[in-house]
């Protein structure tokens, strides 16, 4: 599997250094099913929500992904695509998605392990998992908003929706200015 990292983040252990607004979102190509891959740059022209989470089967993550699954319609109203991402492998993701009837892709940041999480500055070296972190990436591939949640706390969807609203307002204002 190839992973193209165009903007790597260096930090002593990668924690608490999540990429912030205005930074180009590092590109990547990851498995979304055991036999399919997806690249971030395929979504250019659309808004992308990247939801990093620690692990497929831990209870909080289950709740968080189950919640996003229910809020997909709201995300789609903003023409935003949601991608979940963790260090779990594609087979694990497929079982987890099936169990929870998830209707959005889960990407496997599996080999080299956590490389994409590291690129976004949200890899938890100590626990060998990604942090619980959210990124809203604008249609030009620039990070519009990011949020690093305390590990045990499900961040909910409100922050994402506020960021999407803000992005929409911004793009409308820009359109008017043109």
């Amino acid at each position, binding site marked *: 599997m190839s992973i193209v990292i165009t903007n790597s983040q260096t930090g002593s252990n990668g924690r608490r250094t999540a990429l912030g607004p205005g930074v180009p979102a590092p590109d990547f190509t990851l498995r979304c099913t055991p036999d399919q891959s997806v690249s971030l740059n395929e979504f250019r022209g659309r808004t992308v929500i990247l939801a990093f989470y620690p692990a497929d089967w831990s209870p909080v993550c289950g709740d968080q992904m*189950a*919640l996003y699954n229910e809020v997909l319609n709201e995300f789609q109203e903003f023409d935003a695509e949601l991608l979940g991402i963790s260090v779990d492998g594609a087979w694990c993701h497929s079982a987890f998605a099936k169990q*929870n009837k998830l209707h959005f892709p889960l990407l496997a940041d599996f080999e080299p392990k956590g490389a994409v999480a590291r690129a976004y500055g949200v890899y938890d070296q100590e626990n060998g998992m990604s942090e619980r972190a959210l990124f809203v990436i604008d249609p030009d591939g620039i990070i519009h908003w990011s949020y690093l949640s305390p590990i045990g706390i499900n961040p*909910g*969807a*409100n922050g994402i929706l506020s960021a999407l609203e803000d992005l929409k307002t911004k793009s409308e204002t820009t359109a008017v200015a043109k």
Partner: protein
Amino acid sequence: MTARIQLTLPDPERDHFQGSADAPIKLLEYGDYECPFCGDAHAMVQEIQRRLGHDLLFAFRNFPLTNVHPHAEHAAEAAEAAGEQGNFWGMHDLLFENQSALEDEGLAAYAAELGLDATRLIRQVAWKIYAPRIHEDFKSGVRGGVNGTPTFFINGERYDGVPDVKDLLSALTAQIS
């Protein structure tokens, strides 16, 4: 649509609530009738209501996670339909006490048990009469910071503590001490 709803505070004009509208402690739950954690929380809330009496207003809004809980939406609609016939809370209790039997036949049986018009109730469920209201509950929860079920708000603030009687009770009584 959600702009007119207070996201994290009960609205006695709109919400189903128990207790006095001007009680000093307002507890709002966002819950799902098929969620086992909400089932556990139901007994806890009842105990807390017994302990706090008139000091507590308890309100409930629907937050059905319909992909993982296939019966949650109809159950929520049944509670709303029972509310239209004057007994939201009777149905609310029966749904939580029978979480493993929430098919439509069960909903009809609970309506009959409560002395409600079961045919009318099931028809309203089939016609999704209360789906918009439930969606309004759901949306207000998402925007208010609900991050799973159950989520509780105490006088407008999300409670992130352990959902047990002791911890929730001390968070609630802190509001009046």
